[in-house]
């Protein structure tokens, strides 16, 4: 437990230091959202309709840009060796790394969402469903992303490969997340069902991804 806590604390600290991944992720999120808004044009009604999907895709891309650093930085400076040899259960360590990634990118994105939502003219009754869907869904994104990072840790440049790997695995979370946000805003009966499926996807990922990450890390040690 002590080791897992230390890994999370260290990764979060590093993410917020100079050269860390948090600020770029939030900045990228903001830039994507604003560019989308500019491309969609000045129609405010249209904007408020597509605000939630824009924010969901923006969050998805923003969590992606820092993925390849999750394990590669540790591998390059040798600390992955320490982490692997001292972890009693590598799957738990992988879960801790994913948790740290979520705390340092997913959570800041959620905190930035209300501000960006104002820019996109999101209707007031849509805020809660959107934030709730992000809160339930983004941990799943970090888990899947850290699995892709573990698969590609031995490659020098893996960002493109990571996006090819994660995009199909992200789709269910994107569909249910954006679906829940839209249904919640409209007060439609699909809200609860979409949230349930989103939660199921994240829980299921929380079982599979750490085990798969551990297997991938072991295969990637050299």
């Amino acid at each position, binding site marked *: 437990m002590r080791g897992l806590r230390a890994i999370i604390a260290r990764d979060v600290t590093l993410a917020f230091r100079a050269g860390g991944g948090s600020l770029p992720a939030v900045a990228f999120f903001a830039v994507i959202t604003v560019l989308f808004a500019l491309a969609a044009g000045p129609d405010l009604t249209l904007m408020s*309709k597509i605000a939630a999907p824009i924010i969901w895709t923006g969050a998805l891309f923003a969590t992606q840009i820092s993925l390849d650093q999750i394990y590669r930085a540790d591998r390059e400076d040798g600390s992955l060796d320490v982490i692997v040899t001292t972890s*009693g*259960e590598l*799957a*738990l360590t992988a879960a801790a790394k994913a948790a740290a990634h979520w705390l340092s990118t997913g959570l800041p994105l959620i905190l930035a969402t209300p501000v960006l939502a104002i820019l996109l003219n999101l209707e007031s009754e849509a805020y809660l469903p959107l934030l709730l869907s992000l809160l339930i869904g983004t941990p799943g994104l970090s888990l899947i992303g850290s699995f892709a990072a573990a698969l590609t840790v031995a490659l020098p440049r893996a960002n493109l490969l990571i996006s090819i790997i994660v995009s199909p695995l992200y789709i269910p979370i994107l569909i*249910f997340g954006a*679906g829940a946000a*839209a249904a919640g*805003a*409209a*007060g*439609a*009966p*699909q809200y*609860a*069902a*979409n949230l*349930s*499926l989103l*939660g*199921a*996807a994240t*829980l*299921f990922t*929380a*079982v599979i991804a750490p*085990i798969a990450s551990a297997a991938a890390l072991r295969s990637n040690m050299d």
Partner: protein
Amino acid sequence: MKKKTRRLYLAAGAFVFAAGAVALTLNALKGSITFFYLPSDIAALAAKPTAAIRLGGLVEAGSLQYGETEESGKPHVAFTVTDGETRINVAYVGLLPDLFREGQGVIVQGRFTPDGDHLDAETVLAKHDENYMPKEVADALKESGRWQETGGKAGTGSGGRN
């Protein structure tokens, strides 16, 4: 902690998570996360939705009416979508897909008029059922009176409404 005990705890934890995922999925399948609403789903709502929705059901036999045709060649059409319990009127401007038939499944996308009187469709998609048969067989079935069993449940028999 011994390796074996730790593994046991881990397996138990994973099982709890997986069971939670299954429970949530079953819970979701009870409700609807559907590609479309049925007319009865709409009737069950407190108010007609204002956002664009998808409505699915059967085109009621004898309900299809053609209005005037616009200069662009697009006809005005009106028909009724039913699931056997509730009926909803739909208005559409444009060409209907090949599979559009009275008594067959259809999915329309659009929004309700402000008075909630009918749905203004933007797109009309014809839904095919799982039955494939030659025309002669279909005719024969119709003549022998066994037709309703197979063809009648077309639109609603899409499986999702268990």
